[in-house]
């Protein structure tokens, strides 16, 4: 394939990755921002989302659309409730101490992974996409007759991939609306800014934390449900999203949702593009290097503001 069409293909791949990563990283960023908790189990909530999606879609049967829509609603909800319960039962008892919660979420990571292995098993399972039309993309050429369009072989995407991008945009806007415009968003932001004063104004901080932890996990699960018709559900699939989300949150500036979205698009796109042209490993090496550079030269993140 020529460079132009190849690049378009890579950008499309990157867009899909960026979409899923945006949702996953938003979840991690929200939890860190509001609660100051580094959730090492975040990738496992992603994995649980995919596994539950497989479970729901499979047990419902009928047309793939029905199973998928059910998974899209049930899996994030279930993961959210589980995470909120984990916060209430475990992290709350540690008083959400930043250091002790790291250890606790590492423990959660292994427990979730092993229970999944014991019940769901070691195999990967696909979820049938609800729709999956191939969409050919035209390219152009200058000939002696002027500009001409044609459909290069292999330059195509699927309707499902476009749906993933659209769904992520809708969900991302939803999160923004929730945070910036709703009463609940105001409560979350106030809690994030000053936990003690929030308490002194009647905000039940412990419950807000459980809700935030659940919501953050549900966002990861939502990303996973979207991706599972493209990638299969597997009990070890949480590692990459965790690593990439961490990279995104650090590059975007800890606790900044806008920075998180921008960094997720940057990392997702470049990851997709480099993976197509070179290799996924190189993509990860470069992203990790970028994190190291950011930590050294701009610790507040590329998009975060300087601490006062």
């Amino acid at each position: 394939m020529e460079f132009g069409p190849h690049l378009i293909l890579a950008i499309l791949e990157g867009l899909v990755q960026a979409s899923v990563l945006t949702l996953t990283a938003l979840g991690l960023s929200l939890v860190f921002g509001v609660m100051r908790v580094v959730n090492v189990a975040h990738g496992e909530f992603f994995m649980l989302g995919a596994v539950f999606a497989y479970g729901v879609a499979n047990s419902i049967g009928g047309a793939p659309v029905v199973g998928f829509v059910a998974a899209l609603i049930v899996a994030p909800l279930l993961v959210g409730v589980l995470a909120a319960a984990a916060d209430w039962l475990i992290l709350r008892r540690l008083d959400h101490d930043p250091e002790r919660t790291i250890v606790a979420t590492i423990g959660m990571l292994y427990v979730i992974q092993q229970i999944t292995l014991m019940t769901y098993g070691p195999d990967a399972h696909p979820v049938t996409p609800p729709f999956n039309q191939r969409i050919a993309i035209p390219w152009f050429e200058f000939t002696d007759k002027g500009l001409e369009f044609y459909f290069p072989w292999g330059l195509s995407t699927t309707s499902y991939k476009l749906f993933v991008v659209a769904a992520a945009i809708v969900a991302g806007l939803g999160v923004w609306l929730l945070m910036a415009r709703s009463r609940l968003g105001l409560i979350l932001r106030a809690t994030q800014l000053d936990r003690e004063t929030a308490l002194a104004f009647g905000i039940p901080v412990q419950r807000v934390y459980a809700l935030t932890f659940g919501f953050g996990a549900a966002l990861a699960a939502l990303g996973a449900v979207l991706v599972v018709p493209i990638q299969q559900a597997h009990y070890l699939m949480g590692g990459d999203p965790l690593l990439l989300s961490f990279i995104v949150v650090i590059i975007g500036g800890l606790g900044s949702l806008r920075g998180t979205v921008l960094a997720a698009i940057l990392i997702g796109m470049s990851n997709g593009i480099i993976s197509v042209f070179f290799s996924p490993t190189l993509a990860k090496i470069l992203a990790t290097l970028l994190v190291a550079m950011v930590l050294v030269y701009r610790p507040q993140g590329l998009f975060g503001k300087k601490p006062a």
Partner: protein
Amino acid sequence: MMLEVRHISAGYGKVQVLHDLSLGVKAGEILCLLGRNGAGKTTLLKTIMGLVRARSGEILLEGVPLNDLPAYKVPRQGVGYIPQGRRLFAELTVAENLQVGLMTRGQGDEVLEHVLTMFPRLRERMDQRAETLSGGEQQMLATARALCLRPRVLLLDEPTEGLQPSMIAMIRAAVVELRAQGVAIILVEQRVEAVLEVADRVIFIENGRNALEATPDDLRANESLVHRYVGV
């Protein structure tokens, strides 16, 4: 008594700050607390708010114990708090800060309207972020935020710290107006002259203990008392 603190002990970790401290304040009364830096004045207010847990003793609001409640329920009983250093939600706008105060007890626009008539300068700055306000405006916002929950009891921790005289007069006027409305007020202050002008009663705190209770007249008559407990 509107608010009664009975034999409270409290502290942080192994350090005990308050020792068997008691006081009470009636509706429509201003009780001033004086004491040296580190005496435990802020700790006392935090203990009333449930932010620091009382280890023993009781805190009663019109006879109903507050110290068994989780901290977030204390303001919902009508206890407004203006913390030392203001503690505004820095990145939220003026309007959002006030909204948090209104939410505490589900107050609506009439209350907001009333509070904004007391502090008209805030009305012009509703969409400005709290951190960009001047010091005086920040103190107005901290006060207004607490008034948004229509408190029965108001706790003010050094509200005039770092303010110029005109601002201090404004805060004082607000406090006196609230007293007239029947709010029970506990005012922590460093500046003795300011205390003498508004206080109905004064309690000195020394090393987390009750040291002396007096009226402003007592203190005017006997300045050595002030010297002894506040050391100015």
